[in-house]
């Protein structure tokens, strides 16, 4: 396909967005934050009105390679900008961890069209398995993380079972039921720490260096959260690559086919059973990884972090950002983690605004902030 736009528009656009995000994260005052949000919204509306928005998005779409590199550089610099404010890095790391979970959820909600409210539970399973192996048996992070991922994946498969013979509306119900069941069981078992949760989860160690430990270089102290942030970013990059490859593979194609029409996909010989189970398993593995990263990041895990509300929040993130669009999912997650943290004073209105935003998005822009692109097939092969 011929490249028809120069990368300039996309470059300027992303730089402006990046600058806005950095300023927003640096600001602490509530009213300035509110003002920034309003200014930002106004800016976007102007951009859409003047056509810059469309041009910039087109430019980004046409120069995916360059833009990915740019986004990568931007992301890598971000923690350095906040060297003396670990709090911002902390929030950013948290957002990146949730991004991994929503990338997994996107496989189910976005690609395969199955609304899964139990992603919070899988997040919890990954976190608990990893934390318990660490606290009770002293296994290193590099063993507990895959164990957490595997456990979440197996849970995902198990949850898929009751939904095989049923349809969408049953599926949502099953995921809700599973979210409550796993929450209640973890809460009431003694060996999971029950309602007390699990404190003192250790930090990962690479080459004898503990990630998340302060490093002092002469007069500069690099906060511990910085190293953890870069580790999470590495995982996020891996998750993005995995999600991208899944999306472009036969798996992704099959999921899209099921989402669009179950009956005709079966006519073409797709196994609904297999595809659905695969979507559940892959999606939950992402959530498990995110959970494990979370548990070792905070050092404490309790049932509050695996409740039904978390699952609901994750679904909101995917829908807000854009179903089946990886960049959209990341945007949605970052927005729903960072904005509520800045507007903590309005915490009581948070659930209400989630509900309203969800309704408005579904009615007026169901494809999300960044809609997914239609699949393009090139009959002449690559290039």
């Amino acid at each position, binding site marked *: 396909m011929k490249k028809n736009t120069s990368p300039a528009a996309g470059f300027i656009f992303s730089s402006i967005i990046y600058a806005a995000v950095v300023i927003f994260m640096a600001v602490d005052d509530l009213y300035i934050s509110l003002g920034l949000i309003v200014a930002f919204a106004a800016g976007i509306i102007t951009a859409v009105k003047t056509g810059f928005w469309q041009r910039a998005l087109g430019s980004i779409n046409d120069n995916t390679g360059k833009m990915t590199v740019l986004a990568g550089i931007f992301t890598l610099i971000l923690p350095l900008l906040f060297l003396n404010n670990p709090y911002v890095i902390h929030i950013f790391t948290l957002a990146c961890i949730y991004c991994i979970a929503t990338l997994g959820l996107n496989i189910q*909600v976005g690609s395969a*069209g*199955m*609304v899964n409210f139990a992603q919070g539970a899988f997040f919890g399973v990954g976190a608990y398995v990893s934390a318990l192996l660490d606290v009770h048996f002293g296994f290193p992070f590099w063993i507990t993380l895959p164990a957490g991922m595997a456990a979440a994946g197996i849970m995902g498969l198990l949850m898929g*079972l*009751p*939904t095989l*013979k*049923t*349809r*969408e*509306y*049953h599926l*949502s*119900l*099953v995921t*809700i*039921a*599973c979210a*409550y*069941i796993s929450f*209640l*069981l973890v*809460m*009431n078992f003694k060996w999971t720490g029950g309602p007390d949760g699990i404190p003192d989860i250790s930090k990962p160690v690479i080459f004898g260096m503990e990630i998340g430990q302060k490093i002092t270089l002469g007069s500069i102290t690099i906060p511990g959260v910085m190293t953890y942030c870069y580790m999470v970013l590495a995982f996020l990059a891996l998750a993005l690559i995995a999600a991208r490859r899944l999306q472009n593979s036969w798996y992704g194609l099959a999921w899209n086919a099921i*989402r669009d029409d*179950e*009956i005709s996909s*079966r*006519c073409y010989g797709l196994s609904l059973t297999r595809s659905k189970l695969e979507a559940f398993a892959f999606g939950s593995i992402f959530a498990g990884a995110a959970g494990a990263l979370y548990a070792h990041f905070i050092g404490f895990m309790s049932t509050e972090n695996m409740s039904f509300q978390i699952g*609901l929040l994750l*679904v909101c993130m995917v*829908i807000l950002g854009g179903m089946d669009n990886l960049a959209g999912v990341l945007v949605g997650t970052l927005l729903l983690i960072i904005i509520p943290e800045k507007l903590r004073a309005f915490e*009581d*209105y948070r*659930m*209400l605004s*989630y*509900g*309203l935003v*969800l*309704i408005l998005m*579904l*009615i007026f822009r*169901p494809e999300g902030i960044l809609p997914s692109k239609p699949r393009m097939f090139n009959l002449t092969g690559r290039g």
Partner: protein
Amino acid sequence: MSLVFLLHLKNSIMLGAQYSLIAIGFTLFFGALNVVVFCQGAFYILASFIAAGLLSLFMGAGSFGPVVFGCIVFAIFFLAMCLTGCVGMLVERSTIRPFRSAPLVMPILSTIAVGIVVEQLLKLFYPQGSNPQVFPEVFPDAGMMLGSLYVSAGELVILGTTIITFTGIYLFLSKTRLGSHIVAISQDFEAAHLMGINVDRAIYTTFFIGASLAAIAGFMNGIYYTVFRYDMGAMAGIKGFSASVVGGLGSVYGAVIGGFLMAFTETFAAAYIPGGSAIRDVFSFGILLLFLILRPSGIIGQNSLEKV
């Protein structure tokens, strides 16, 4: 039978009546539109708030003779029920109709969102909404002995209402013109449309009835358990939906059977399994999962999977 067993039995019948009423609503919506309306729990709790608010206003207004008092109480319940029914129609118009031809996922999400919004509005804007609310005691502190079991006036009212409502729904669907329209729509939406049935009116009616049934369940909750809070609706709604699935989605009888089955499972598991009271929801959801694995069509109901 021991007294304790009888008490457990009474508890599960009281709970089962609520679940069944909510489940009938789910079944009606599903039959009419092939959608799942996840905000039944919101109707349930909204009705409790409206009724409790009106009742306490009225009871603060002065004292009345028993007959006048009874009539006004009944009128208030009826008014609260109708208001909730109207909210049901409003929800249909605003957040379900736009998705009539959209993927099934959309109305599921939008009704969940409506549930959240209603719950949060009650919490934030009802006076003292985030605190537990008391349901005024409107029934006399009297009752009768059934053998060794004491049944209070409020409980008798709940039982009577349940029986009357079930019969009413049955008669409405089978004997009235509007009822048969609803049945026709649930069997074949397009054919019903072609036969000249006013589809929109029938769907409005369905939502009015469904939300009203949830409202009645909400009143029973208030009368029997006396205290309610803004966040108690969601779980009741999910249980009601589970009950309708266990009974067989689309069947009114199934909804009733499913509701009582769920309630019995829950109550007796909480009572007789050691440590069961803390995880009673695990048992009721367990029943649901078992049914979905072994008999996805429910107790009464056709196999819903489309054959290729």
